[in-house]
Every structure is written in C-alpha cells, then in structure tokens.
C-alpha cells in the first residue's frame, strides 16, 4: 500500500518535470544579471575569475551565510556525539613501517597543493572551498594510514574561529571606511592577472580556506571512535 502511493507520487512528479523540460530551452541566453557581471566584473573587482568575483564580491553575504551553516553543522556533530560512554578501548596494532612512512611523506605535499588552490583563487579555477576540502582529505589520509594519530583539538578550533572572525572583521572595516555598505572592497585593485590584485578577495579566500579545512577534518575526527 505504501509502495503504491509512493509510485503514484513519483509519476505525478515525473509528469511535472517533463512539462518543465519542454518549456525551458537548452543553450540560450536566459538572464541579464549574468551578462552585467561578465561585462563589468573586470573593472569593478579586478579578479580574473568571474565566478570568484560573484561569490566573494557581488554576493558575499550569501557566502557569509554558508560559512555560518558550516559552523553550525560542526557544532551540531560535536554536541550530538559528545555524551557517549566508551564501551572498552580496543588495543589496535600499529600500522607497518611502509604505510606509516608513506603517509607521513605525502601529508605536507597534499597540504601544499591545497594551499596553492586557495591562494590563487582569483586567477585560476579554485578557491577557498575546494582548497579546504583538499586539506581535509590530507588529514583523513593521516587518520587512516598512521593509526592513533590525531590533530590537536584546541589548535583546530582556534584556526576555525580565527578564519570566521577575519571574514566578519574585514566586512566591518569595509563598513567603517566606505560608509556605504558591508564588505566593501577597499584595498587597491592592482594590476590585472597578477597575484597581488583584486583588493580583499585573496585575503577572504585564505581565511575561508583555513576555516573549511580545519572544520571538515574536525567533523571526521569526531565521527571516528577509536582512541
């Protein structure tokens, strides 16, 4: 009976989606806002990557909301899983020498790659969120390869909070200097297509990269159980 109602619901939704597919043409120019951002993105912000300038400069308030949601999720995972009594601590055998040395050798190289991605966010495809995810996967490699190693909890929380605080303080400084609106781009724009350009956009992406990296590795650390 439940499955029957489920299938009827799916048929109705599929019919609605098919009507949508006929109404929206594929591959034609649909909106005007995108055209404005592409034509004026160079002059307004100075970043080469238009998607970065949309995420950090034109729609930066949405990015602030996303950073808040990630913070809440990390706190939520910590709060739900915190009140556990461990049954017994299993004694794990340490991993072999090759595995241990290999993981410890690869760890700084992956960190360097992740840092390269979020520092050059305004010139090439990439940015804070992608670089933070690569840094978190470096930490997951160390957790899986060398058993029993964990990062320092206090240091991770400090990096996360400092990242979020930098974002908000830069926005408030923009409000104080320009006087018109939150998160104004107040540093000089510099030369196009070089590393030190586009005002506060690289600084915000570095803060977001630190924050997302330490947050995601903290979530996985709390979900794992062994000592």
């Amino acid at each position: 009976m439940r499955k029957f109602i489920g299938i009827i619901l799916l048929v109705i939704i599929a019919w609605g989606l098919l009507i949508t597919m006929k109404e929206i043409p594929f591959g034609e120019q649909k909106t005007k806002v995108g055209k404005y951002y592409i034509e004026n993105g160079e002059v307004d912000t100075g970043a080469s990557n238009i998607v970065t300038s949309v995420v950090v400069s034109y729609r930066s308030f949405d990015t602030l909301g996303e950073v808040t949601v990630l913070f809440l999720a990390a706190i939520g995972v910590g709060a739900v899983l915190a009140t556990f009594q461990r049954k017994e601590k299993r004694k794990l055998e340490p991993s072999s020498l090759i595995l241990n040395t290999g993981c410890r050798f690869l760890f700084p190289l992956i960190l360097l790659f992740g840092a390269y991605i979020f520092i050059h966010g305004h010139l090439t495809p990439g940015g804070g969120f992608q670089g933070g995810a690569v840094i978190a996967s470096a930490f997951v490699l160390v957790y899986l390869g060398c058993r029993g190693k964990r990062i320092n909890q206090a240091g991770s929380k400090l990096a996360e909070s400092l990242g979020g605080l930098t974002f908000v303080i830069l926005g408030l400084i923009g409000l104080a200097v320009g006087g018109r609106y939150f998160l104004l781009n107040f540093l000089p724009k510099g030369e196009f297509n070089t590393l030190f350009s586009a005002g506060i956009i690289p600084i915000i992406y570095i803060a977001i990269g630190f924050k997302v990296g330490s947050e995601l590795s903290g979530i996985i650390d709390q979900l794992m159980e062994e000592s």
Partner: protein
Amino acid sequence: MIILASLLVVLMLVAAIAASVFKDLISAVIAGCMVSLIAAVLFYLLQAPDVAMAEASIGAALVSAVFIVAIKRTKRYEE
C-alpha cells in the same frame, strides 16, 4: 561530444539504480561515489570548472569517507 555525454549519462543512471539494489551498504556507498564522479565530468563538459572541482573533492571523496566511518559504527548489511 554528444556521444560522450550520452554514454556518461547512461552510466550515471545505471550506477544510481545499482545504489538502490545492493544489500551490502558499503557497495551502495561506492556506487554513490561513482555517481558523484561522473557528475563532476559532466560539470566540466558544461564549461563549469569551479563546480567540477568542488563536486570531485567534496562530493566524491569526503561524503564517501563520512559514510564509511558511520557504517563502521553501525551495521554493515541491510536486513
């Protein structure tokens, strides 16, 4: 180009159906990871390199890691 996109879409739908049929939960997670990976290639074919990078690193790697760690703490086989 269209032939490549059609083949990839068919492979993605087969992987999604496989994720619903498998009884071993870790196999279902690996099928879900394959859906994310093919979606990342499709994002690249739609000229969106930022989104492709985000989907490949977050959707294919970190979501699978979180699922496998959670399955390890509960049951492995669906009843």
